[in-house]
């Protein structure tokens, strides 16, 4: 009986106290015809030793290659201290800090996290996290509808350069509340949103304009112009940003004359391993005027009975356990453990470290693009300034080339053909600070070999 401490004596004594003869009697309120009891397809329980052997074997099946895929999940160095501390029982096995006095550790971490995210994005207030970047964008748009009293049409301008899966998640999670996404085209030469495409939407009562910076192609958008246009139209600006990039890029609060209104994004680059896509965390920051429309937990600093500072969950009146059907969202569980990791990560790298990570990633992607473009038949798709991703065009279909690269131990990028058929044989590649010159060369040589 793994994890159950009861001895036979305990069971006997406890049943006696209850006044029951056997444990099964405790289930006598369940109609008999419903009692199942058999779980034939569940395997027998195994000792930890045997489960460990199975899992190790399976892990080894995922023979990990040299990874040049980004597309929303980025391989960064994670300081050893991050997860050694994060997985301490006190962080790992605690729950939402409902009893603030017995949860000051988690609460202070969340307060520090909120402070860091507002610092990075330049906004006034941050929540304590969302599930992931994509769902954070959905929540941000719902929040925009609630916040934009002038234009609450639910019409959202959504550039085609936004992560395609983010758009899908927005559809899944906001469509029922009447939000509609209107696509904005991108410049086929530069790979960023066409400013001219905005004009046709003037006077349409747009609720919000989404800007992803850097965009899905890794290209930098003209954030100032789009922001100013949106504000002129009475639309809110919802920014989707990569937190690493904010060490070097203008924070959304400074976009255009008035800055973005709501900022969200995927927190994974801040200390979460790739790990098959999760758990990661979404972040969400905004201007103080919109704080009461914000979904999710928020931690505040206050005083105790003795006047000593302490932390607790605050503004809970927005949340579902109080407001039920009138809540800002149904979200309650968030990604606290990942936020703990991110907070420790940001403390360890600091502003200089994060800037160097960003800078080294830009430089390595530049080197990668140069090395790949030197392979006969390969070219770079866009001329726009970029962060740490780029689109390269292959002479053959990516569906042919990528598996061959994988067989050589190179995970060569994200195949764009399904979402962007207009780009032809295009692949999105990424080289973060973790990649060495040798590894970049290895990719180029493998590609050469595959295309030869």
């Amino acid at each position, binding site marked *: 009986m793994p994890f159950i401490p009861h001895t036979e004596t305990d069971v006997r004594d406890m049943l006696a106290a209850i006044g029951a003869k056997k444990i099964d009697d405790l289930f006598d*309120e*369940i109609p008999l015809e419903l009692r199942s009891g058999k779980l034939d397809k569940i395997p027998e329980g195994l000792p930890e030793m045997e489960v460990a052997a199975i899992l190790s074997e399976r892990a080894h099946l995922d023979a990990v290659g040299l990874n040049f895929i980004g597309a929303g999940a980025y391989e960064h160095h994670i300081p050893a201290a991050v997860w050694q501390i994060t997985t301490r029982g006190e962080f790992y096995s605690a729950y939402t800090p409902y009893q603030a006095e017995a949860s000051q550790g*988690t609460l202070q971490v969340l307060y520090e996290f909120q402070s860091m995210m507002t*610092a990075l994005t330049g906004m006034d207030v*941050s929540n304590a996290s969302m599930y992931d970047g994509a769902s954070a964008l959905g929540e941000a748009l719902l929040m925009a509808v609630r916040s934009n009293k002038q234009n609450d049409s639910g019409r959202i301008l959504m550039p085609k350069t936004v992560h395609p899966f983010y758009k899908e998640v927005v559809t899944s999670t906001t469509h*029922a509340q009447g939000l509609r996404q209107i696509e904005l085209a991108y410049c086929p030469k530069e790979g960023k949103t066409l400013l001219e495409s905005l004009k046709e939407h003037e006077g349409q009562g747009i609720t919000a304009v989404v800007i992803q910076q850097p965009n899905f192609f890794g290209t930098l958008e003209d954030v100032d112009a789009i922001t100013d246009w949106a504000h002129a139209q009475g639309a809110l600006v919802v920014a989707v940003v990569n937190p690493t990039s904010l060490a070097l890029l203008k924070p959304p609060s400074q976009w255009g004359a008035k800055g973005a209104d709501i900022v969200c994004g995927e927190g994974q680059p801040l200390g979460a391993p790739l790990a098959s896509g999760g758990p990661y965390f979404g972040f969400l920051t905004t201007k103080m005027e919109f704080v009461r429309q914000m979904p999710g937990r928020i931690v505040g600093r206050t005083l105790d009975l003795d006047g000593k500072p302490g932390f607790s969950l605050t503004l809970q009146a927005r949340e579902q356990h109080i407001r039920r059907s009138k809540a800002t969202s149904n979200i309650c569980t968030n990604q606290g453990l990942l936020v703990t990791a991110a907070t420790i990560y940001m403390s360890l790298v*600091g502003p200089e470290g994060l800037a160097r990570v960003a800078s080294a990633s830009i430089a390595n992607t530049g080197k990668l693009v140069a090395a790949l473009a030197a392979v006969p038949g390969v070219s770079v798709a866009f001329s726009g300034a970029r962060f740490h991703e780029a689109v390269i065009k292959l002479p053959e279909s990516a569906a042919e080339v990528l598996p061959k690269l994988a067989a050589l131990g190179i995970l060569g990028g994200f195949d764009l053909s399904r979402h962007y058929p207009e780009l032809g044989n295009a692949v999105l590649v990424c080289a973060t600070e973790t990649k060495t010159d040798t590894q970049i060369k290895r990719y180029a040589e493998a590609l050469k070999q595959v295309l030869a």
Partner: protein
Amino acid sequence: MTEKLIFEHSRATRTATAQMPSAAVDVSAIPEHLRRKDKPMLPEVSEMQAVRHYTRLSQKNFSIDTHFYPLGSCTMKYNPRACNSLAMLPEFLARHPFAPASHSQGFLSCMYDLQEILKEVTGMAGVSLTPMAGAQGEFAGVAMINAYHKARGDSARTEILVPDAAHGTNPATAVMLGCSVREIPTNADGDVDIEALKAAVGPQTAGIMLTNPSTLGVFERNIKKIAEIVHQAGGLLYYDGANLNAILGKVRPGDMGFDVIHMNLHKTFSTPHGGGGPGAGAVGVSKRLLPFMPIPVVGKEGDSYRWLDENDLPQSIGRLSAFMGNAGVLLRAYIYARLLGREGMHRVAEFATLNANYLQARLSEKGFDLAFPKRRASHEFIITLKRQKKEIELTATDVAKRLLDYGFHAPTIYFPLLVPECLLIEPTETEDKETLDSFIEALCAIYEEAKKDVAYVKGAPYTMPVRRLDDVRAVRQLDVRWNQPAQTHG
């Protein structure tokens, strides 16, 4: 001792040098007008300062690894340490979510096996693992119900029924999906009021969201009847699996007639709660909802595994996360399931229920009032301090705070909303009898303290890092981020 904020350890130019790439920053690739001009106010500390700060902060938490944590409806049971270390095997951590299937068979096989295990324990026809928390599982569930009616052209069904004892997420979820919500009252014994239900159903009924055992800590005895009523009215049944720990191996939502269920794997399958997440809210569906499952789902063809996406499930309600949800949490749940196995799963509900009924019986014997004295406890139960509040002004909050001084995390308080001054107590199956006995003693001792001097109890806690916090001030004088004082920085 008060712990400074990490920012208060910060000094300009201080760094954890080993954590920075060697190359100096070069922004020449970024157009001037897109560059950041100011240094973001992240802490500038040494590696040891960060390690010491966060290690010390961790010690200010109660947690399963350090304390009994009978937080009702949260299933705070032991999180096996092997689940953590095996889910963090280097190969699992290094796998990119878009790695090709050739580099993913290990991970995919675990996910497939987990789907199969969850199907078996719930009696459902299909499982999708992608929802990232219970609330997202609920969202997926109601979305599928909507999609089902819509696919049949039954567009009038836009109302979701919710018992008044339900988790707050249920109505909030329904609203997010454009549904209206109608609450169904609960009777004095904690069951759904069948007559009220009958009166409520109709051609507008999309479905009902039900937790069973309910949040009142009792098993809904009329479940078959309820299923019949709702199904006959054309609605579907949604099972909120928050309390699956009470019935694992005893009764299956599929057998009870439910069409869709979400499972909080961070509860029943013991993945860590992490100070507020991540969770995982896998959904199981009956046959008729199979086409609508959220993507991706893992499929098996011969000996190999691959993602099923919109090509395989064109009627899917779509994606709920950019990748496939909280993969690492799912791995932990899978590992837990393998450790437990069939027999282990049967015993989860048995011993969770034994512990709850033991505590209930002993506390009742000691003079505490049960919310539902005529009922068996499920995996949890409720005591109400209504009488004590009236007699000596002792509130649920007072008892909760004082329990911290006795070394126990408090039960859930003031939930469910239906029961005044309530403590919802869930001991879980992993606690030993001695701990339960100490908890009983502590509650009795607190009651005695309160009888003598309720003001003393109202001053609790006394031994925590802080005393009782001013939540009103927290809202009125909103302080939700650190503001850099001029003198210490830059």
